[in-house]
């Protein structure tokens, strides 16, 4: 901090992408993570992945149902969302996303219908095709969400090259964590599946850790402006949120816990990984908007208690839970062999 320059009159800039945007990125990240988690079983035909594949798809569908609600809620004029569909703008990643998202969700719904209801063992070629198409669309979602933020020249922290893989890996980790939690809690849980998920989660968390380490190092070595901004965010501006919550509780602790094979620990590991996937997005959005474009210091963010804030976050989790209950109940009823 240069003590020779003092800001006398300045105004903190409000953040405009708030809790709802974080919720959208979180749930869509879980959804695409869930879809990509079906690929070992359905595309690469790895043995032992059948029930995990179904669980991953359940995660993908339930999260995919909540995501568009959160996205609409973040618009300040949500009733005008139809405008997206009247005015395709190829220069805007958000415009691409507006078309990509419903396409992905449609593909996901059909994939879920096929793999959760019609062909629960995943043997038919149609199931494989559905997995492939939906996975490609999921990759497209990862690309568009990271690029949407990353191409902006106004915020140094947001860079496409770091955000796209970061959101992808953390989304996969979050989805795996959620699958692990669900598997442990469902009556049909098998220890083999838990071990598989736990191992996969450990691997994904390790990848996440490597990603953060690479980004921070690039910043420390002055190779990356966004890395330098991230370092500043972690060390100077928001050490509690970034170091303690995101890296500590959300990344390193679940990584450590994933090495142990106890059901109670599995639930903790999964929940912490889920928290980590949420926290990285919180850090990018809220932390990122707190770093002034023009001013000095850091703009603090007040999380409002109402529907734009805490209640909104809780509400979206509640909606997810409702979706899970409804879908699992339907599946148990119509496909008891696989789900009851």
């Amino acid at each position, binding site marked *: 901090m240069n003590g020779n*320059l003092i800001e*006398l009159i300045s105004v903190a800039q409000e953040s405009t992408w708030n809790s709802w945007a974080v919720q959208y990125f979180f749930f869509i990240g879980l959804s695409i993570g869930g879809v990509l988690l079906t690929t070992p079983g359905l595309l690469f035909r790895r043995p032992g992945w059948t029930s995990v594949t179904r669980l991953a798809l359940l995660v993908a569908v339930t999260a995919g149902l909540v995501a568009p609600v959160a996205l609409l809620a973040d618009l300040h004029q949500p009733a005008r969302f139809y405008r*997206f569909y*009247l005015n395709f703008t190829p220069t805007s990643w958000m415009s691409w996303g507006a078309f990509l998202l419903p396409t992905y969700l449609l593909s996901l719904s059909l994939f879920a219908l096929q793999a959760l209801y019609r062909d629960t063992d995943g043997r038919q070629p149609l199931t494989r095709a559905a997995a492939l198409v939906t996975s490609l669309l999921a990759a497209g979602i990862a690309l568009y969400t990271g690029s*949407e933020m990353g191409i902006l020249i*106004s915020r140094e922290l947001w860079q496409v090259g770091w955000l796209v893989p970061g959101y992808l890996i953390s989304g996969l980790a979050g989805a795996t964590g959620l699958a692990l939690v669900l598997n442990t809690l469902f009556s049909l849980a098998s220890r083999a599946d838990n071990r598989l998920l736990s191992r996969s989660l450990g691997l994904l968390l390790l990848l996440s850790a490597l990603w953060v380490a690479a980004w921070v190092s690039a910043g420390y070595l002055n190779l990356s402006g966004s890395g330098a901004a991230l370092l500043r965010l972690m060390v100077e501006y928001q050490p509690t949120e970034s170091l303690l919550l995101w890296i500590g509780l959300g990344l390193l602790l679940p990584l450590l816990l994933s090495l142990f094979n106890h059901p109670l620990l599995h639930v903790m590991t999964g929940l912490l990984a889920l928290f980590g996937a949420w926290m990285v997005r919180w850090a990018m959005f809220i932390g990122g908007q707190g770093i002034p474009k*023009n*001013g000095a210091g850091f703009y603090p963010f007040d999380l409002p208690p109402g529907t734009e804030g805490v209640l909104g976050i809780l509400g979206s989790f509640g909606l997810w839970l409702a979706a899970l209950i409804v879908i699992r109940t339907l599946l148990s009823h119509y496909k008891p062999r696989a789900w009851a």
Partner: protein
Amino acid sequence: MDSSRRKFLATVAATVTTPVADRASAARHARTNRDKPRWVMVVDLRKCIGCQACTVACSTENRVPVGQYRTLVNQYEVEQEGKPRSAMLPRLCNHCENPPCIPVCPVQATYQRSDGIVVVDNTRCVGCAYCVQACPYDARFINHETQTADKCTFCVHRVEAGLLPACVETCVGGARIFGDIKDPDSEVSRLIASFDTKGLKPELKTRPQVYYIGLDNRLQHKIEGVPGPWTKTANFEQEALS
């Protein structure tokens, strides 16, 4: 009437009425395209006293909600030759030649007019705030009342009526000068030609069209220093003005 205002009105009058009859004058102006001006602003920081009259005038003219600003004069204490000095920096939308905010709008609600002014159609804007994020100059915000993107418009409604933007009209020190950069005889053109003017964040290649005279290097980019005490904008409950 101030000389810059007189010259400005002459520019507007000549643009909107029939071509100038005087041949010499016509020859001198033949190079410029008088049908399409390019509006720019020059901010002479030697004259800014930080009175915020422009902030208030703009806020009143454009019904900007309290706590939000289309223009604002930042004030800094900088060290010059070992002594503390006040430095003013009026900030507003730069109406860039290469605006980063326009391509990102997913519904094409924001656009740049042929005279260079960047505006928002707030009947179309969905309030996604992508343009607010995209602007490197904190020029845009989501208007609390309209829930759409908002920014300085160079008072386009006044300019079209042959008036100056509110901030220019009211500037006590005569620090804000507005005019057509395509007219070589305009006050802005003369100032830009005579002084070494600077735009904010030139490395971003936005080609901002607000030219500062006497801008300190330390203020040209993100400010590194002791932050101001205003960490929150107060949200006052306010009824609509009509």
